């Protein structure tokens, strides 16, 4: 197996700790991300998938657990220089291309912000040249540099968000629902762009989304989250053809496909968390069913899975 880029160990993110309204948004999840792969995270709204992404990149301080990037714990105490070096390696693309670009800044300054912070360019000429290059990488024109965000369409704005993330030459990009706000025909353009960039630059992606068919297309491995827990993770193909956790099965059976014949015969399964009938003494943890395919289950369930 490939080299691990990121290890997430027992990550916990609780909000309102100790109060009545405590929320366990991310509740003890563990997974690895390998170099050069795309890991997709799917789940319904409120399942904690975005919080996971935001905690990994340290937008939130973790309540517990570790995020180890290339051997270094992200959430451990760090000096400013260490933090800066880390920030350069990890970047994020946000869901809403309307809210994530400062409307009062020109595209040139939006994209160059990271370059300035990390001192990656020596003079204005180099700065402009670099921004032009980035714009062309994401399929825009250099003339766009002097415009403001409102002059762009949704798809173009998402390209700007990608250019901004690429500016500091990161190794790892967290894409939080990057295509949800876009039209179908534009979604395909952005997904293709992300794939091309990955091939060219050997990027690693954490791709968070609720559109399962697009996630299957872009991801090498997929994790399914439900109520703050990772319930199943495995190779994309395995997860879609042989899902084991009943929640994954219910999620997959709910996706409508552009195929009327299939739709007429689709049977939707619903998920009832009490159907597991876990006993008090049973330990429910992630168990490896086939190589690389982990399911949250009890020993009893584990034994019943086809191997």
């Amino acid at each position, binding site marked *: 197996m490939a080299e691990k880029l990121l290890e997430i160990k027992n990550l916990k993110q609780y909000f309102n700790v100790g109060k009545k309204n405590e929320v366990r948004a991310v509740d003890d999840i563990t997974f690895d991300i390998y170099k050069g792969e795309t890991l997709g995270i799917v789940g319904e709204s409120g399942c904690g998938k975005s919080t996971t992404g935001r905690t990994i990149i340290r937008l939130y301080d973790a309540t517990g657990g570790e995020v180890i990037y290339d051997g270094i714990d992200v959430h451990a105490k760090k000096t400013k220089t260490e933090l800066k070096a880390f920030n350069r390696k990890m970047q994020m693309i946000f869901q809403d291309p309307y809210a994530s670009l400062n409307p009062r800044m020109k595209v040139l300054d939006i994209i160059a912000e990271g370059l300035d912070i990390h001192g990656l360019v020596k003079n204005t000429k180099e700065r402009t040249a670099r921004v032009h290059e980035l714009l062309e990488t994401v399929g825009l024109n250099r003339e766009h540099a002097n415009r403001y965000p409102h002059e762009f369409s949704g798809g173009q704005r998402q390209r700007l968000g990608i250019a901004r993330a690429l500016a500091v030459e990161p190794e790892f990009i967290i894409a939080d629902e990057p295509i949800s706000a876009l*039209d179908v025909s534009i979604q395909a*353009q952005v997904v293709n762009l992300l794939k091309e960039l990955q091939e060219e630059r050997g990027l690693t992606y954490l791709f968070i989304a609720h559109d399962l068919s697009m996630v299957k*297309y872009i991801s090498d491995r997929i994790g399914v989250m439900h109520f703050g827990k990772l319930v199943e993770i495995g190779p994309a193909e395995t997860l879609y053809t042989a899902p084991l956790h009943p929640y994954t099965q219910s999620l997959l059976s709910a996706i409508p496909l552009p195929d009327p014949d299939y739709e007429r015969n689709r049977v939707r399964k619903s998920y009832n968390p009490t159907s597991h009938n876990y006993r008090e003494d049973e330990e429910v943890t992630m168990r490896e069913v086939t190589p690389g395919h982990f399911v949250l289950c009890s020993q009893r369930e584990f034994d019943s899975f086809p191997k």
Partner: protein
Amino acid sequence: MEKIVEVKNLELSFHTFAGEVKAIQGVNFEVFKGETLAIVGESGSGKSVTTKSIMRLLPKSSTEYKKGEILFGGKDLLKISESEMQKVRGKDISMIFQDPMTSLNPTMTIGKQIMEPLLKHQKLSKSDAWNKSIELLALVGMPQPEMRMKQYPHQFSGGQRQRIVIAVALACNPKLLIADEPTTALDVTIQAQILELMKDLQKKIDTSIIFITHDLGVVANVADRVAVMYGGRIVEVGTVDEIFYNPQHPYTWGLLSSMPSLDAGEEKLYAIPGTPPDLLAPPKGDAFALRSEYAMKIDMEQVPPLFKVSDTHYAATWLLHPDAPQVDPPAAVIERMKRFPGSRYHVGIAGGDR
């Protein structure tokens, strides 16, 4: 079959500071009794504007109806007075909006909101309306309807709110229900529940539905017939099988091939190049020509009329003209056409006529 609503040659423009936006440029369609017509298209294609013009919900100050008529129950909805229109809205035609968070009044209990159309249109007494509302809530699958009647929208989840909106819309047994992206804001599992609910209720009260969406999976699930809109025009219309298994318009081809399928591991996703047309200055000829690899010279000059493919299937592309060269659609579309008896790629014909 009985026609519930008929839109004839509708042309509509918005006057903005930037100039005249030709949002709808000649749209014709009808909805039959008891059927679901899905309208698909990108944002800006005119699908929402078309249905909002049926409800007359567009701002009077900037909207100009240039041509056409919308026939409903023997009347042209574009000609009747506002007070007559108010008798139609919520009674004969009702609407479900995309965002259930904003389409309910946050300061009113949901009981009051469901009772509103009953009191106004059916002139029920308050206690009758109250009881009918409880029935409606139960009908849309809300547990403990009596208790829920006194609650406010913020006390419900997104899926539940959409159920309430559906209850309000169905209160007066409308002849036509317009659902404008009713499940786009919902999770897939909730979406599946809402779609099942709508189909179930449609059978019970025999209403017709216009379903607007950009999700082709949802279309395949709910629609009897499909109209594909692009640049303010309907470019293809047909039964759901005709659109999915025998599409004729290059834009429909593009839409169908840009969706990844769950079983195939194709290397690169087909992406329609470019962006939707600017309706401030609509392109001459076929609006899709600039993004289409199948465009011919005539596409740049003349708008294609709707060519007949079958009694129920029409497509506006010059490729269907008898003199046009025969072209092969993208591979993913040919795969679909192999399953459709009557298409030239149907496997039964042993290679077709090529």
